[in-house]
């Protein structure tokens, strides 16, 4: 797929990995810029990992720090798992973007600024007294000042745009510069612009792109052209995918593999709404979406659909899960399949809606009245969302139970290359609906899974009643019998525990002794990279990363015992730590961070080192 690279005039240097961050006003098109560069990097064969960072406002006031939108990308010739700790190249379209993102730039790193946007007015909006270009702020960095606005406007002048429209082409100018810097073919973006924009905007954007590229070459902005060689990726067909998109595809795949309608009942909430947006166009895949009046109605409608023989799925974020708690309890006691997706965000309450966090684990485990055990699993990376969604659906149907799928803002909005699976390799799990009235009992159970029969309305002869009052074993009639209640509470717990019977043994990467890093969810990339770094430094470290949080894998206790110390990094105040400590009485060390931001590799590596 590689197309002819532009011929650079400068020296060509090979590097292993580059972390680049684009930052500008939210109106500046930084996400588009990032997407294009990411795609281009993927096409040249690099491994990639990204981290977008949006402001909370729809359109925060232009030029302010609050309005800064960022996009970070690591591309590499190695297998990488995070968007990188330290930024090598920062592209800053205005002063607010510069000062807000400079702390992430490594000392000696390259900063490219749009020198046209450092006028007094710009500085005021960014709450700056002096220009950071002049007050020593940038000492110790390599600085490239480019008059991006003026040059862009000039470049697109012939296309008849008004001033505002012309200005909005400057992201393509910046992109052109970066393509030059990394010696890239611009074909993929040219194609994209032609497909997505209409004239005169397509022409103007392309003009800006070329102008940026030419400018970088002509004025010899950079001392060298850098090349990041191809990574050694597993052969196959790849696409770049965000967690929310992968999760949506996982649900579509579940409809296909189960033969059931997926009924996605939801109420919009950041950062889960995109799952709805992704699913809505897939009606021809037997995926129905239902935008309910609130989260309670969303989960109830999904349960109603499951009651009718579809697979009810409901997606939300933490505050929405809180609202669904009562209805999830009903799904527990009626033993109907249901998948609840929680794309976690910063809490408590409304918290930090656009930021990431892992602080809903305890809510997932225990956030309901009574003993209401629920299966809980989580996604470790954007592409993992596909597999996890499929697995959640399979378990919900196989065990007739609600399943909580934990994603988070980082996984949901981040993107990575995904080796597109072969559909034939995906498991099939069409349910066996009960149709035989002979000996039918609504609360009889499958011997292995303890699942009760799924007998849906419309089936002749199986008319029966279910509900939220305690059920009599087998008959499902309402029962206030004390011993029966105890039996049923234990059966419901046992059913969830039995899911562990089909979980694979815990995979541990790295060493068999020393420190074990035990992670879950989106800390995966940072844990993995940190463990590698510490092993490279000679420390004995293993890494296990949980997909299933309830039940835990059966061998986990054994695994933990092999190590002197267990470190549990989490983006919360230590929730998995509590579970592990209670379950295994292991003095696990929590490593907690609760800043709305993912871990840096370094933060975990340092914690590992401290346990040496």
């Amino acid at each position: 797929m590689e197309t002819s690279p532009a011929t650079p005039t400068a020296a060509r240097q090979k590097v292993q990995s580059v972390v680049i961050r684009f930052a500008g006003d939210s109106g500046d098109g930084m996400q588009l810029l990032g997407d294009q560069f990411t795609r281009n990097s993927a096409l040249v064969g690099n491994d990639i990992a990204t981290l977008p960072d949006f402001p909370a406002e729809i359109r925060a006031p232009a030029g302010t720090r609050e309005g800064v939108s960022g996009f970070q990308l690591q591309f590499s010739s190695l297998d990488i798992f995070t968007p990188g700790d330290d930024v090598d190249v920062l592209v800053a379209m205005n002063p607010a973007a510069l000062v807000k993102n400079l702390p992430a730039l490594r000392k000696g790193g390259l900063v490219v600024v749009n020198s046209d946007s450092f006028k007094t007015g710009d500085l005021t909006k960014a709450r700056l007294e002096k220009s950071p270009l002049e007050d020593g702020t940038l000492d110790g960095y390599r600085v490239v000042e480019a008059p991006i606005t003026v040059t862009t406007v000039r470049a697109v002048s012939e296309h008849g745009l008004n001033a505002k429209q012309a200005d909005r082409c400057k992201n393509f100018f910046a992109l052109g510069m970066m393509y030059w810097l990394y010696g890239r073919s611009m074909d993929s973006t040219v194609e994209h612009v032609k497909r997505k924009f209409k004239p005169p905007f397509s022409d103007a954007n392309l003009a800006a792109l070329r102008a940026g590229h030419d400018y970088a070459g002509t004025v010899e902005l950079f001392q060298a052209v850098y090349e990041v060689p191809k990574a050694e990726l597993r052969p196959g067909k790849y696409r770049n995918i965000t967690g929310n998109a992968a999760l949506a595809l996982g649900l579509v795949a579940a409809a296909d593999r189960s033969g059931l309608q997926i009924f996605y009942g939801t109420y919009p909430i950041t950062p889960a709404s995109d799952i709805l947006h992704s699913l809505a166009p897939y009606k021809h895949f037997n995926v129905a979406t239902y935008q309910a009046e609130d989260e309670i109605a969303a989960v109830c409608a999904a349960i109603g659909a499951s009651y009718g023989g579809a697979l009810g799925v409901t997606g939300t974020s933490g505050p929405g899960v809180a609202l669904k708690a009562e209805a999830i309890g009903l799904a527990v006691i009626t033993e109907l399949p249901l998948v609840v997706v929680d794309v976690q965000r910063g809490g408590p309450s409304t918290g930090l809606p656009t930021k990431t966090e892992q602080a809903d684990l305890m809510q997932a485990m225990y956030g309901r009245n009574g003993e209401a055990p629920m299966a809980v699993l989580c996604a470790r990376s954007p592409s993992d969302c596909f597999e996890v969604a499929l697995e959640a659906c399979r378990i919900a149907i196989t065990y007739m139970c609600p399943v909580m799928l934990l994603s988070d803002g980082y996984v949901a909005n981040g993107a990575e290359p995904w080796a597109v699976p072969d559909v034939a390799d995906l498991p099939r799990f069409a349910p066996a609906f009960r149709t035989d009235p002979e000996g039918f009992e609504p609360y009889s159970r499958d011997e292995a899974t303890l699942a009760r029969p799924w007998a849906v309305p419309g089936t002749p002869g199986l008319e029966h009643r279910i509900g939220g009052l305690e059920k009599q074993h087998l008959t499902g009639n309402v029962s206030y019998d004390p011993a029966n209640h105890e039996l049923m509470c234990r059966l419901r717990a046992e059913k969830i525990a039995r899911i562990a019977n089909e979980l694979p043994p815990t995979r541990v990467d790295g060493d068999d002794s020393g420190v074990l890093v035990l992670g879950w969810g989106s800390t995966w990339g940072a844990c993995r990279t940190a463990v590698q770094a510490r092993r490279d430094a000679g420390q004995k470290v293993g890494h296990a990363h949980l997909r299933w949080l309830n039940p835990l894998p059966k061998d986990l206790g054994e695994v933990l015992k092999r190590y002197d110390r267990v470190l549990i990094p989490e983006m919360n105040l230590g929730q998995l730590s509590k579970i592990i400590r209670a379950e295994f009485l292991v003095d696990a060390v929590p490593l907690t961070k609760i800043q709305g931001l993912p871990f840096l590799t370094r933060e975990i590596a340092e914690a590992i080192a401290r346990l040496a």
Partner: protein
Amino acid sequence: MSTNPVYSKKDFSSDQMVRWCPGCGDYSILAQVQTAFADLGIPREKFAVIAGIGCSSRFPYYMQTYGFHTIHGRAPAFASGLKASRPDLSVWVVTGDGDSLSIGGNHLIHLFRRNVDVNVMLFNNRIYGLTKGQYSPTSEIGKRTKSSPMGSIDAPFNPLLLAIGSGCTYVSRSVDVFTKHLQESVKKMHAHKGTSFVEIYQNCNIFNDGAWAGFTDRGARDEKVLYLEDGQPLIWGKAQRHGFVTNGFGLAVIEVNTPEDEARVLRHDVSNKVLAQALAALDHAKGDPVPVGVFYVEDRPAYDELFQAQLREASEKNGKGDLQKLLNQGDTWVVS
């Protein structure tokens, strides 16, 4: 189904012991619904009866159909999901004045505006029965209960005005002890495509005995109840001597003595929303007659039909989805 089964009331009685208080109005409602269901000519397994929580909401246990006793106030939401994905079922919601109008108000009005083809029976006894007698959102102001020892200060909802105001397309009223009328009400609801709503005046003889007695008692009935029939004059009373005429933008009562009087009397028109609102606003406590029957009917597409139509249309337009193709979509590249 080529031939429809023939049922009797008994076919719709489950084996569960009915556990309402002796004398509760719910018994009669149960009997009328069972009788009416037997007459509808739909296979029994096609019925799904969904309820919230309350005395009334125990209804599904006593029906030999599919039944779901859900959680407090949310029955319309469960029913919406069920009906949207299973339009072949005949879906009924049973709810109380607390269940539907207190905790469940939002789901009810959203059901109405969406016009999901679900039939809602609201058992209005103006009290919380199951929790032992607190005032409800239909209790009259000044009601003394355990939770309102000095009298309640919350003005009640008018369930019919709320239904019309939120877009319900079929709005009716009946009474627990009006056996035939109630049976007919149930059958007519079934016939309407879209959300059908009936408010059923129900007596809770334990906590709010006689709430409706002023016009449901055998003695009062004939004089106080206005039986609504589409196209018929709005006349009531034992002697049929009271009638409604328009008065500016409102209703006025006249005595109907002559054929000319009768000609002046307004005729009921179930398609006239403003008239329905005026009739729904009548207040027995102020001496108005109490209309029962169908207040309002509107013809607009049912949500579940539109929902299914989009699923069909998507498949017709795009063909049945090919999963592998979908996964392969987007900007892919091959590593070899």
